[in-house]
């Protein structure tokens, strides 16, 4: 009775995800030193291989798999048809909608004057809706720190990882990177600095530059990039860029809400040094994004900078 389908169902009601297994105490696992845990896993895997788990007949692996597949397809179809029903009721695609006109009108017509940005999207994300964007860079910052928590290795035991899968001996890769890397970096810098004039901005430019650094470190090994991106510098750049972003935007929010003058001139629209804070903010965001992308890559690859 303990392993019957009904008992499994009851356990599932209680929030037990693993209906395949018999009733067992779910108890908290105390801290076990790393090594012994590893050995235990090895041992367990053998045990699992030799003696498969006691599984009630109604829930055999095969049945469960089929059940999963059927449920997922049915769910998928139900969700899609519900949403299609909703979508068919939406306003028509590809025409200007009266509802949004009130809001977009101001962005398009007054945006240039109020923010100084030729690229209206840049004006929106770094001026009108800057609080969202501030949050967005902190999402990246949070992701970087979570990855640091998970993948950073403090011991030296995994150092030998680097040599194993770095391709830095490969001539074809090196040569092609030598040709493409300058282009990638120049493109990234261009996209970053012209964020207020042409498509792009801090996020896209930063991602392109981060991609360039990743290329360099793939081709020439981590030592080359590690020479000029040390952990200290990495942290400093992140710190300066984020605190500049946070402080300057708080200042703008504060003055704006209180009706004070910011003392930041917008310059001539269309010039590279224009549109007030948007250019420095783009640079700050770009640095954060570059650092984040590269840092996450290093964490995945090696576990340290």
């Amino acid at each position, binding site marked *: 009775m303990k392993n019957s389908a009904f008992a499994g169902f009851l356990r599932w009601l209680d*929030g037990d995800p693993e209906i395949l297994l018999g009733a067992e105490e779910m108890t*908290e696992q105390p801290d076990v030193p790393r090594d012994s845990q590893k050995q235990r896993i090895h041992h367990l895997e053998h045990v699992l291989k030799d003696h498969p788990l006691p599984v009630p007949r109604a829930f055999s692996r095969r049945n469960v798999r089929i059940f999963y597949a059927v449920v997922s397809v049915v769910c998928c179809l139900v969700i899609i048809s519900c949403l299609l029903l909703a979508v068919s009721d939406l*306003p028509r695609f590809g025409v200007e909608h009266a509802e949004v006109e009130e809001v977009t009108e101001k962005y398009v017509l007054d945006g240039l004057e109020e923010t100084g940005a030729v690229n209206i999207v840049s004006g929106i994300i770094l001026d009108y809706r800057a609080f*969202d964007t501030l949050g967005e860079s902190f999402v990246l910052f949070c992701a970087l720190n979570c990855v640091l928590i998970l993948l950073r290795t403090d011991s030296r035991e995994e150092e030998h990882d680097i040599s194993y899968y770095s391709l830095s001996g490969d001539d074809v890769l090196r040569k092609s990177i030598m040709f493409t890397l300058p282009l990638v970096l120049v493109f990234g810098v261009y996209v970053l600095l012209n964020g207020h004039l042409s498509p792009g901005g801090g996020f896209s430019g930063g991602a392109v530059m981060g991609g360039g650094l990743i290329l360099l470190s793939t081709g020439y090994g981590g030592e080359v990039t590690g020479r000029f991106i040390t952990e200290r510098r990495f942290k400093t750049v992140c710190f300066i860029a984020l605190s500049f972003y946070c402080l300057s935007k708080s200042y703008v929010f504060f003055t704006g*809400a209180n*009706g004070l003058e910011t003392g930041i001139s917008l310059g001539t629209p269309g010039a590279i040094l224009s549109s007030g804070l948007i250019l420095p903010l783009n640079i700050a965001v770009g640095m954060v994004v570059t650092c984040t992308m590269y840092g996450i890559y290093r964490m995945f690859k090696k576990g340290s900078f």
Partner: protein
Amino acid sequence: MDFVRNFPLFSVALCLMSAVLCSVLGAKPAKWLTLSVQAVNCCLSASVAAFCLCTGESYLYPMGFIGAPWGNELRGGVLEGLIGSSAALVLCMSVLGGVRFIKRDILPAKQNLYFLLINLVGAAVTSLIYTNDVFTGYVFLEILTLSSCGILMIRDIGRTTLAATRYLILNLMGSGLFLLGLILSYDITGHLLMQSMAGSFDLLEQSGEHAIVASVAVGLICVGLGIKSGLYPFHFWMQDTYGSATPSSAAVLSGVVSKGYIFLLIKIMCRVIGIGSPLLEGARFILLVLGILGIVMGSVGAMRQSSVNRMIALSSAAQIGYIYVGIGLGTELSLAAAILQLIAHMLTKPLLFLAAARLTEVSSGSPVFKALQGSGRRDPFAGAMFSAGAFSMMGIPAFAGFSAKLYFCVAAVEYQDLAARWAVLLALAVSTVLNTYYFIRTAIRIWSPIGPAAEKPPRHELAFVAASTVLVALNLVIGLWSGQISRVISAGIEMLS
């Protein structure tokens, strides 16, 4: 313009800046920075609440030169201030009370990252509470999800990683559904600010256009936030998550994070759709049913657990069920009861988690009930604190939990629909009986004299004593002066719509 109006901006900026600072500080300065920033944050929010209570009206705060409907906005009001200050306080106390466990569970090199994430949680919750723009709500929702997942998985054992994975997947599904709801409502209204959206929803309701999209969008928003906050059928991650995290993280996750989602839902319901709107009727009915089911099933599930922290975790499902019942009934009284319950639960759960962690510590580290026998005698202070929390959960008079339950009863009795009224009252009765049963059982176990050989009790540190005393004191304050507090809450709810 009064200077107090800037306080919401200050508290968000303060939290974000201290998060950035924590990334370059060591563990110890980061801890003090976090604690003091959260304390300041609490004071700032409390003064916002006091200010709004004095002037008698809420205010809008444009983020930048251009306000509605073009730029982002914050909104300050009594409810926002009240919940913001209690969230910051609970965050501060959970960290303070669990400092020893943080030192025990987390590698020294990564402790400053823990405080960084706590700051991000604070910033995200504060902005979720104050925001007046639904998309800002989404962005900070994601920060809250990621940082809460971070404080969960920072403990380096397999169970926690597994729990974090499941927590992350469910939460991402919830945010996906929430975002879809937002997108659909943006498509039909063309606005992202709450009051402009509300105007468009009113117009749509009158003209009857896009009725299907509107109801699907409302349903998706409710379901998304329900999944994230642990509404009944989606409560199954709780026991693993809260059971395996370091006690401070469990306290923060149950006390602050889930409440942030719920408050956002209440705000969207009241300010965007209108709590009495016919669009919301279906969603409210579903929330009511799921809430009642959550109360009953959560209590039954908690009763069947064999270890104390899993029991506390599952009783959260029941407590969150109460809040959803309050939202589902949708009268002013029931909303006030829901918010009172929200605050009461916010103050009680961290206390229980922290005290249970102490009791576990003196029982050779095992949270199973058998091992806990007599632990209250080994560490009387923690035992007393646990009992106080349990009393509040059971609904003993003079504690916050009692007044919340009382207001629920009043709200249910005054509800027109007979079936709903009796269902709610019955669920309340059943869950009170079950709550009393399993908390009394635990209390008897921890105070009973027989047990394993006495171990040397850990040194009583000031941090835990201070944190739990503050939490119990606030619990008593809310319980004893519940009339005044519920008047403040009703004033806040009136301001909300």
